[in-house]
């Protein structure tokens, strides 16, 4: 009898709890609708929330500037500290004050409702981190860095890398990157002198001014697409002639080089495998602090990747496509890894 009563009470309570949970769930759904969809939407409520919170925080941090000036004066008067320590502390202090000024400025802009797509502050200790707006359509932006690489299509050897500050336009990184490749080429003492023939990229670097600058350097741009259509891997003789005429490189580049450039442009997605190799070595996540840290990490990862690539070339562990491309470029396999000593 008692057990039956307890069971009845429990079931009644369960029903009540279920109703409460259901109503709460409905309220949450309503609230979430106000915020927009989880991955898409404008999120106006978030902006309001940020504005309210930041106003309070700005009021709270009002005396920081005055206190900072006082602290700076006290630091200069501190005789017990050595010059080196004082200098180090002053530098750290200036960096902290600069960060605060940046935060305050940005918060004010946000409160006034100004649009801040680029140079938005993400990390108070590293102002060079910016939203990555690559390939996003009305989605929350990813924050971080966007390192650039210039690699060889056959083996994936990376000739140059660059970690920009913030998130600059894609077209702005091509020429500085090619300058770095050129500086590496100038170190080579063998003859004939090596030269850059062509550059392939994605639609992000499709810019008329950039094409003109590359043509002026004698570099073909057939690998940079002008629309979403895929490039022709084997252009006809007329097409090759048209490409050379358009680039104004009739005397500088041969039809054979144009054909190779077209093949490179056609197989441009292979760069994803080079990026995957870097990611496998931890390049997808910046572990060191600040922009200098990101430069160090990226550089060391690229060097490790290049080392592994050179070992693969020595051991001939290359794909058929890579082997064919190397043959077309006139790169030979050297049997310098074999031991020619006596077996016994």
């Amino acid at each position, binding site marked *: 009898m008692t057990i039956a009563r307890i069971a009845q009470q429990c079931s009644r309570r369960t029903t009540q709890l279920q109703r409460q949970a259901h109503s709460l769930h409905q309220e949450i759904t309503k609230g979430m609708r106000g915020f927009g969809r989880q991955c898409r939407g404008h999120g106006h409520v978030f902006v309001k929330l940020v504005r309210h919170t930041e106003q309070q925080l700005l009021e709270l941090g009002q005396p920081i500037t005055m206190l900072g000036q006082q602290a700076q004066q006290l630091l200069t008067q501190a005789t017990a500290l050595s010059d080196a320590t004082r200098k180090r502390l002053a530098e750290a202090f200036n960096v902290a004050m600069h960060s605060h000024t940046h935060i305050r400025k940005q918060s004010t802009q946000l409160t006034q409702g100004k649009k801040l797509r680029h140079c938005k502050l993400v990390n108070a200790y590293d102002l060079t981190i910016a939203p990555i707006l690559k390939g996003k359509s009305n989605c929350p932006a990813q924050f971080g860095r966007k390192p650039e690489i210039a690699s060889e299509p056959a083996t994936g050897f990376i*000739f*140059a890398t660059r970690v920009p500050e913030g998130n600059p336009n894609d077209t702005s990184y091509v020429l500085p990157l090619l300058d770095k490749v050129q500086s590496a080429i100038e170190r*080579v003492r063998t003859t004939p002198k090596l030269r850059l023939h062509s550059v392939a990229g994605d639609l992000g670097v499709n810019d008329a001014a950039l094409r003109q600058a590359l043509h002026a350097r004698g570099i073909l741009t057939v690998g940079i697409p002008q629309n979403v259509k895929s490039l022709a891997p084997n252009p006809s003789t007329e097409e090759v002639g048209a490409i050379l005429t358009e680039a104004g490189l009739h005397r500088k580049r041969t039809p054979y080089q144009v054909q190779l450039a077209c093949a490179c442009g056609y197989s441009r997605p292979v760069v994803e495998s080079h990026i995957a190799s870097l990611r496998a*070595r931890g390049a*997808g996540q910046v572990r060191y602090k600040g922009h200098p840290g990101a430069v160090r990490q990226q550089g060391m990862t690229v060097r490790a990747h290049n080392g592994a690539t050179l070992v693969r070339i020595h051991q001939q562990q290359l794909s058929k496509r890579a082997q064919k491309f190397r043959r077309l470029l*006139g790169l030979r396999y050297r049997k310098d890894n074999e031991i020619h000593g006596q077996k016994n």
Partner: protein
Amino acid sequence: MPIRVLLALELLKHELGGSDEDICHRLRTDFAVMYACGLREYQAPRSQVHFGLPETLCEFRGRIDEALMDELIAIQAAAAMEEGLVSPAHLLIDTFPCEPRQPAGH
């Protein structure tokens, strides 16, 4: 500790995907790591302490700036081109996103 050993450790750290402490530990215990660092002869010390401290590696890393890193990559690329292993004639350029490491618990 010689600079070449520190540079090799820094490089191996990224190749093997470990921490500073891991790679310094392996310098004492892993013959492959010793070989890669150019240590051909080795006398086993009786103590169990590191002979390459993670702090030293961190300090060394802090002194590598952007110009030096560019130069190191250029030297590597030039050496590969000089041997005829790679050619800069046709290049692919691209960017990829990398995110800052999230603090533990996020």
